């Protein structure tokens, strides 16, 4: 996983609440057995139109506007990533190029999945997010700087917004760590727990029933 420290990048606005993971990546792209290559299907139903049997870019969809082509930060509304647990959603966002998402709130499972894929989720108060939507609309080419060690979003005008971040998640994102290796450092504790559990509740082990 790619480590994240500081990112200064173009911001793309997606002005809808409750963007669900079905919208982020529709079901027909979940049939893959790979993790890569989903970026071209990100927001598929909004992003493309069918015309004369061929797929064309929907000119009304915000990410299709050329000024947002290089956006690496997505600005979104409340409850982003709700619904299905599909990790294909963060895979698609990351493959497209988004490294950070700013919103008032995120759905729990989606938030966990983002951490596993090096995407930084930035929770800011709804009025601040609203202000940023106005700034993006008013200033073509609007950029933000995300300083993960300081947990700050910095504007080019030098406003700073602190954001909360789970300490464990921050560590993982900063260093691009793989959890399994870390967890297996606790192998003895897991075995000890498991042995005690087998004793106390043998019905939880199918060979104990």
């Amino acid at each position: 996983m790619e480590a994240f420290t500081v990112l200064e990048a173009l911001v793309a606005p997606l002005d809808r609440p409750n963007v669900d993971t079905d919208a982020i990546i529709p079901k027909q792209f979940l049939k893959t057995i790979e993790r890569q290559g989903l970026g071209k299907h990100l927001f598929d139903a909004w992003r493309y139109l069918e015309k004369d049997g061929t797929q064309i870019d929907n000119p009304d969809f915000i990410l299709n506007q050329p000024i947002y082509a290089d956006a690496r930060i997505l600005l979104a509304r409340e409850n982003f990533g709700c619904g299905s647990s599909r990790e294909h959603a963060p895979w698609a966002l990351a493959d497209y190029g988004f490294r950070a998402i700013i919103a008032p709130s995120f759905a729990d499972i989606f938030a966990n999945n983002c951490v596993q894929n090096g995407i930084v989720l930035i929770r800011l108060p709804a009025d601040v997010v609203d202000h940023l939507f106005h700034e993006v609309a008013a200033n073509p080419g609007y950029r933000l700087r995300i300083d993960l060690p300081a947990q700050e979003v910095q504007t080019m005008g030098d406003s700073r917004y602190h954001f909360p971040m789970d300490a464990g998640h921050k560590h993982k994102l900063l260093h691009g760590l793989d959890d399994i290796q870390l967890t297996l450092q606790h192998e003895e504790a897991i075995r000890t727990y498991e042995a005690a559990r087998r004793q106390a509740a043998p019905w939880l082990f199918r060979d104990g029933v």
Partner: protein
Amino acid sequence: MAGKTLYDKLWESHVVHTEPDGAVLLYIDRQLLHEVTSPQAFSGLRAAGRKAWRIDANIATADHNVPTTDRAAGIVDPTSRLQVDTLDQNCAEFGIEEFGMLDPRQGIVHVIAPEQGLTLPGMTVVCGDSHTATHGALGALAFGIGTTEVEHVLATQCLWARKAKSMRVWVEGALGQGVTAKDMVLAIIGKMGTAGGTGYAIEFAGPAVQALSIEGRMTLCNMAIEAGARSGMVGVDAITIDYLRGRPYAPVGRIWDQAVAAWGQLHSDSDADFDAEIHLDAADIAPQVTWGTSPEMVAEISATVPDPDQETDPVRRKGWTDALAYMDLQANTPLSAITLDKVFIGSCTNARIEDLRAAAAVAKGHHKAASVKLAMVVPGSGLVKAQAEAEGLDRIFKEAGFEWREPGCSMCLAMNADRLEPGERCASTSNRNFEGRQGAGGRTHLVSPAMAAAAAIAGHFVDVRDWPAK
């Protein structure tokens, strides 16, 4: 000191290790695997040269991609077929038990695990599927995870987690005739909003919840995620124990007695404190119909489609306006005036035997409206299907012009061939009315099985409480 919640008890009994910053390594008793969210997890294990930590903790089935027609003919779509074949190969390679596509025990993972006694009270249950909360109906701590976490559980039998806040949704009184667990949970989501439960573990309690069968409790817990909560749960009582007794993977004899004694503790103490509480009276709940593209966009059958101009919050107003445009609905239209193209009875929310009985009771002696192109019933498992056939429910459906299909997720998410065409409108007993969920451009209205059956026959939504029983 206040007593413990059910969630406290389930959480504390699974803590393997706590980091100084409060992150917990949580032990997982049961992992359910299906074809869509597991291939990359197995690839990861293989690439790292790792084995499954505890094979017997896992059980697998193919449900999302499987056809609901002629099973013996196999899967036509090559990408769907590859995904199902990949699950078969992975389970064989890693030694994991699988109910394959032709096994009579195959079905939707959230239907078959309780049915087999693979979900037991006091367990932690995970699956790469957000509707894993379903299993909380048996007094388990169950939640959906992503594929990286599926791999982590396969490799370590644990997950890193932080304890959620606790919420109790208390439902007083008794549901009226024709009003079901589905209406209860839709009413709860309507009250809380789709993000109302974010960061919480929800316990459903109160007389109206206790009165529900395990099937009804599963419908309730299934949709906890639609209120934003990763897990929903109900305390163990005599109904739970009766449900589990004699299930194929449930304990027997002395171990059963020992288990039942332990399960008796799995309820919130009377003096437990919750971080949040919500109260409803079941008597106030009418049959529900969603009108928008989020499960919180729901109203009772006698209501009209709301008018975005009456909403003062600008973000919500825009959400409603977008939803009505997508749904092709005008504000102030009576919900009972909405006509349907298709009807889907199935999914991990509502494809258990009780759901099929409720739908059949409505359909009996009637015929679907000519304007309804397709009404399909997709049982949750091969065993539900067999039970329904033994009771003659399949005949009732077929005589009413409904199609009787093979078990799977089917048109809840339309990964197989069952889907809405653009612009089609569907009464569905599933859990999500998101844009395109049942097929690109499709329009979904969530309802109970009885409401769906009645809509299929009338051709539009009707109040099932007024339905003439035959």
